[in-house]
């Protein structure tokens, strides 16, 4: 099936070329980071996790969101998703892969990263995170290969793939739950130590992931013959709406617990994010923008007429993605570290090299996605002709 990615139009090769340029720039910057250390980023003793881990957290959600297609289609025979499922699985592969890359570029001693496997530590959520991410990557790769390969041959897939697909459903939930558990079990970080963190992660994932899928499906429909189908896109739009509503509700619930109990050690993080603390307010405009985007998107998506119109649907989806990316990425990660454990407000901002490396990783993820989607488009065109 890989040969489908080797033949393409000028637009395809231009896209690949642009991505390769971005990736090269990112790799060269990363080599500089390897040489000089993580000091070229904006990370600090008080904020040891920043932009890279924020991207990882967001992309894990995108990866998990494939389950929103897999569950209705494979478990409940929702035929309308039939054409779109492969897009979800391929997105999951690309997203998980970029997650792993983001973790890799964040490591101080990346050459030793295999120590996590050589010295398994079951009491560490990071150990389980490694297992679940690798497992999810493997699962989706196998599922995509077997089901899509069978579709190409026009035969039903081998029977043993069904239990594997069923396994991928709780596994998808688990990868994002484990990621939440990285944060939610730390008594040192009051901002994160809440049971609702995992549900918040999942809800925002199921809003932002399918939003991205909708956008990708619309793009494919515009530039190729791959049509996921109006019913599928509309159904996904409904899923995004519900998930977004739940996600906003979960945030409201968190707001109540923190603000009503009025414990300074808990409130201070929200205060820093939304009002500024001790005169430091770098993230305030970002957080409010994120809320406006997310609430605005919900109000738009609540009306079916808005979802039916491609333009407003696309805009709302973009707003969901950006809004949740800000809230979950920078807001949640950096907000947990400011104020510090010693109650000092020391701000964080990503540096140029940090952003370039991030772009490079996204470039690799986008390249993987481009190649996989090219294969999907190519095979679909073949089977439908």
């Amino acid at each position: 099936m890989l040969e489908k990615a080797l033949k393409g139009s000028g637009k395809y090769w231009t896209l690949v070329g642009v991505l390769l340029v971005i990736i090269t720039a990112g790799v060269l910057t990363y080599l500089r980071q390897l040489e000089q250390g993580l000091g070229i980023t904006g990370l600090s003793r008080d904020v040891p996790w920043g932009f890279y881990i924020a991207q990882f957290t967001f992309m894990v959600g995108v990866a998990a969101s494939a389950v929103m297609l897999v569950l209705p289609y494979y478990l409940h025979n929702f035929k309308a998703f039939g054409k779109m499922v492969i897009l979800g699985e391929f997105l999951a592969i690309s997203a998980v892969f970029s997650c792993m890359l983001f973790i890799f570029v964040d490591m101080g001693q990346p050459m030793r990263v295999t120590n996590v496997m050589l010295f398994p530590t079951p009491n560490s959520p990071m150990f389980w995170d490694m297992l679940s991410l690798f497992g999810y990557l493997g699962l989706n790769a196998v599922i995509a290969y077997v089901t899509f390969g069978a579709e190409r041959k026009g035969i039903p897939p081998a029977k043993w793939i069904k239990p594997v697909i069923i396994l991928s459903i709780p596994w998808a939930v688990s990868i994002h739950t484990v990621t939440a558990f990285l944060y939610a079990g730390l008594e040192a970080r009051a901002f994160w130590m809440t049971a609702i963190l995992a549900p918040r992660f999942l809800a925002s994932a199921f809003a932002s992931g399918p939003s991205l899928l909708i956008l990708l499906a619309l793009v494919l429909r515009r530039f190729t013959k791959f049509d996921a189908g109006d019913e599928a896109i509309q159904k996904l739009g409904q899923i995004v709406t519900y998930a977004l509503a739940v996600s906003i509700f979960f945030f409201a619930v968190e707001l109540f617990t923190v603000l009503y109990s009025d414990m300074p050690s808990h409130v201070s993080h929200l205060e820093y994010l939304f009002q500024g603390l001790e005169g430091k307010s770098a993230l305030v405009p970002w957080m409010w923008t994120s809320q406006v985007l997310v609430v605005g998107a919900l109000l738009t998506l609540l009306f079916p007429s808005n979802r039916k119109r491609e333009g407003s649907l696309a805009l709302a989806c973009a707003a969901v993605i950006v809004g949740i990316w800000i809230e979950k990425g920078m807001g949640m990660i950096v907000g947990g570290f400011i104020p510090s454990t010693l109650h000092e407000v020391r701000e964080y901002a990503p540096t140029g090299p940090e952003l370039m490396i991030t772009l490079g990783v996204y470039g690799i993820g986008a390249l993987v996605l481009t190649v996989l989607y090219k294969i999907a488009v190519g095979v679909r065109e073949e089977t439908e002709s």
Partner: protein
Amino acid sequence: MSESRRQFLKIAGVSLAGAGCALPVARALASSAGKTPDGKQWAMVIDVGKCLEQEGCTACFDTCHAAHNVPSIDDIRHEVKWIWKEQYEHAFPEQAHAYTQTDLKGKPVAVLCNHCERPPCTRVCPTKATWKRESDGIVMMDMHRCIGCRYCMAACPYGARSFNFRDPRPFVDGMHDNFPTRTRGVVEKCNFCAERLAKGEQPACVLACQKQGARALAFGDLSDPNSEVRRILETAHTIRRKPGLGTNPNVFYVV
């Protein structure tokens, strides 16, 4: 292929996969041995009053950082410190209040890794590059194994850990070969001078405080009822940092 041969191959394949997983699991289980019955627990008592008598004294941090080739980096983002002074309100946020006694308000207090009894940092480390030693209760760092993920830094409630954001060597004044430096990309922190304790010596900070005169740092084995730390704890009023978190720090402060 006949059905029985296919069955055999399936079972063989699954068994091999299972056996492959067994080794790391067995190793993980084996390493979780129980605490030895005569295990020590090193602890420190810092007499804040005595320390403050020597105004402007920096003997403990200077000696510690010199003994361990700790770099002095001006950029506060990349600071590396094993023991340092923190304002009372920042070191004890749960105890300080608007009407804190004048001889403590805004005063500097020495803080370091507390070598907690229930350390959250060792709980989260994915490689056991940091762990609590059973023999003496020290929360150790294995610089060879650390992958620099900084999870322990996120987990420490006391800000006790530093990361080498760059090569520390250019910033080490008076580098010597009695102790290694670290390299970029690993986390470091106070190790209760494990290398000196192994030779029966006291930690560098404790000795420095004795030499410089304040005699504010006491060090000893918490499990030994006759140790100096136990004697002080029995009679003096002591507090610990963030006690509500349940980490059970082994650094006590006489206030």
